[in-house]
């Protein structure tokens, strides 16, 4: 399907206006893609075009602008449906982001189906967004939150997971790719095992959606959540894929306009999927521009991007290992282009400040995974994460800047 041509990274870079800016007098080297990806001109243009040409509220207006806006909004839903391999656009709910999607499920599904003593399983690698909503609903329902342990390398202990599963297991919510370490979890197996115990499974796809080929039907997950801004789309829009029968069995998350069929003061009947879960005027502009982000990925092909990013990861990993006292956290084979490391005697914050002065944007700290950092016995890491537009030269600049920073610090 994808042509194996030459990967023209300069042509890709040319599509991203921000990449030509300077930071503190130096060329920006943006290596914080796991936090958010930069936006191609097509995404920025889609936003401008919407507001300049057909801004209107969707679904009920009978005028031309409303028609055009509705068509573009629903076209985005179809694009997302194809992007994740859902069987119908009705299974695609637009949310604010991954966090919002997980909260929707925890609240709506949890409120209806969790009972005292039921168990929810998450993993040690989870982002706070896939911990806190479950803690909240577990506390409310007197359910029990259980955590799959990991090895010192960050690999999930699948034997421990198997032993946790049982008749009490009602829900399993795990991250597909660790945002802090880049490790790819064996979610197919997790889903298969959980389903043997009739547990419902949510996959946090915040990191995997941009790097891996996602087909929710092949994966077999019941829910899949991700954010638009990490797949080159705008901020403020996210997706919840949910299996139709499950979504239909769940009560609405929020009440208001859009989500109703009929409202009387005595009663209200709810709209059908997916509108039941999209109360109020949605984030029309960003949803529409999300399609441009997906189209950008399709125009290069995930496979080609992945091959390019793997090259960057491999090169960076080898170069980083040459630095004395540096230890890569989660140095395993099966990972995406995220590289997290610590250096003896160096606080990540010091490193981030000095790297920023050299135009290099990386992420440092706990990456919103405090329990994971605690488990690994570190305060945080420095994380470089690569995207379609990064180059080997940029990896080289990172290494040079790191060496210079270390000279200053040690």
């Amino acid at each position, binding site marked *: 399907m994808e042509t194996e041509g030459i990967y023209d990274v300069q042509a890709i870079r040319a599509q991203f206006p921000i990449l030509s800016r300077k930071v*503190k007098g130096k060329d920006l080297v943006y290596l914080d893609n796991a936090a958010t990806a930069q936006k191609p001109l097509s995404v920025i243009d889609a936003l401008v075009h919407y507001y300049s040409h057909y801004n209107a509220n969707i679904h009920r207006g009978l005028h031309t602008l409303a028609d055009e806006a509705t068509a573009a909004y629903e076209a985005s839903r179809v694009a997302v449906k194809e992007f994740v391999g859902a069987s119908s656009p009705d299974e695609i709910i637009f949310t604010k982001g991954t966090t919002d999607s997980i909260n929707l499920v925890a609240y709506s599904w949890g409120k209806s189906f969790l009972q005292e003593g039921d168990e929810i399983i998450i993993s040690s690698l989870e982002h706070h967004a896939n911990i806190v909503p479950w803690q909240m609903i577990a506390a409310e329902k007197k359910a029990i939150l259980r955590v799959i342990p990991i090895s010192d390398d960050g690999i999930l202990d699948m034997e421990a997971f198997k032993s946790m599963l049982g008749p009490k297991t009602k829900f399993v919510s795990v991250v597909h790719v660790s945002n802090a370490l880049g490790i790819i979890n064996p979610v197919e197996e997790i889903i298969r095992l959980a389903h043997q115990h009739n547990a419902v499974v949510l996959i946090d796809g915040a990191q995997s959606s941009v790097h891996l080929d996602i087909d929710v039907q092949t994966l077999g997950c019941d829910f899949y959540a991700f954010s638009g801004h990490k797949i080159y789309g705008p901020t403020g829009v996210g997706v919840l894929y949910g299996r139709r029968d499950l979504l239909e069995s769940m009560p609405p998350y929020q009440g208001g306009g859009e989500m109703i069929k009929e409202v009387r003061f005595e009663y209200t009947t709810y709209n059908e999927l997916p509108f039941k879960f999209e109360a109020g005027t949605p984030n029309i502009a960003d949803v529409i521009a999300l399609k441009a982000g997906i189209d950008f990925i399709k125009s290069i092909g995930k496979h080609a991007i992945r091959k390019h990013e793997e090259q960057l990861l491999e090169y960076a990993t080898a170069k980083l290992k040459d630095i004395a006292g540096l230890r890569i956290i989660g140095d395993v084979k099966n990972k995406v282009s995220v590289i997290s490391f610590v250096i003896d005697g160096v*606080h*990540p*914050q*010091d490193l*981030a*400040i*000095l790297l*920023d*002065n050299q135009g290099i944007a990386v992420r*440092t*700290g706990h990456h919103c995974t405090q329990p994971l950092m605690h488990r690994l016995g570190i*305060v*945080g890491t420095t994380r470089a994460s690569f995207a379609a537009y990064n180059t080997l030269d940029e990896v080289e600049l990172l290494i040079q800047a790191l060496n210079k920073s270390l000279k*200053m*610090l040690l």
Partner: protein
Amino acid sequence: MNNHRTIKNIEQELIDDFSLFETWEEKYEYLIDLGKKLAPLDPAFKTEEYKIKGCQSSVWIHSFAKDGFVYFEGDSDAIIVRGLVGLMITVMNGQPAKEIVEAPLEFINTIGLSSHLAQTRSNGLRAMIKQMKMDAGAWQVNAENKTVE
């Protein structure tokens, strides 16, 4: 008391020192050096009680008062922040409580470090200053109460 340097005096000296630095490297090397030279804080004060929680690094500040002047000691697990602790101690150590409470500390904006260091979330410099001023305020109230007695 004639050789007492006010907060304003010390701020001006720092502004003069920093104006000699031509590159960002020199500024940060100065801070790193300051961080390395800062006397270590007694572990008895490296506790939650004295901790100022920033987003990424920990800062501890301990203060005491003597003859109406307030003295500070502090530490951080990050060396640049440790340098900042040292910088703030240089400015505020041994000053009258009232002066500390009222100091606008404008030098931070002038020495050209503020852009990434002043943000509350990244390092808690603002939180650090707030804590030092609160400490000074507490010593001030303490002293006034004693006068009343």
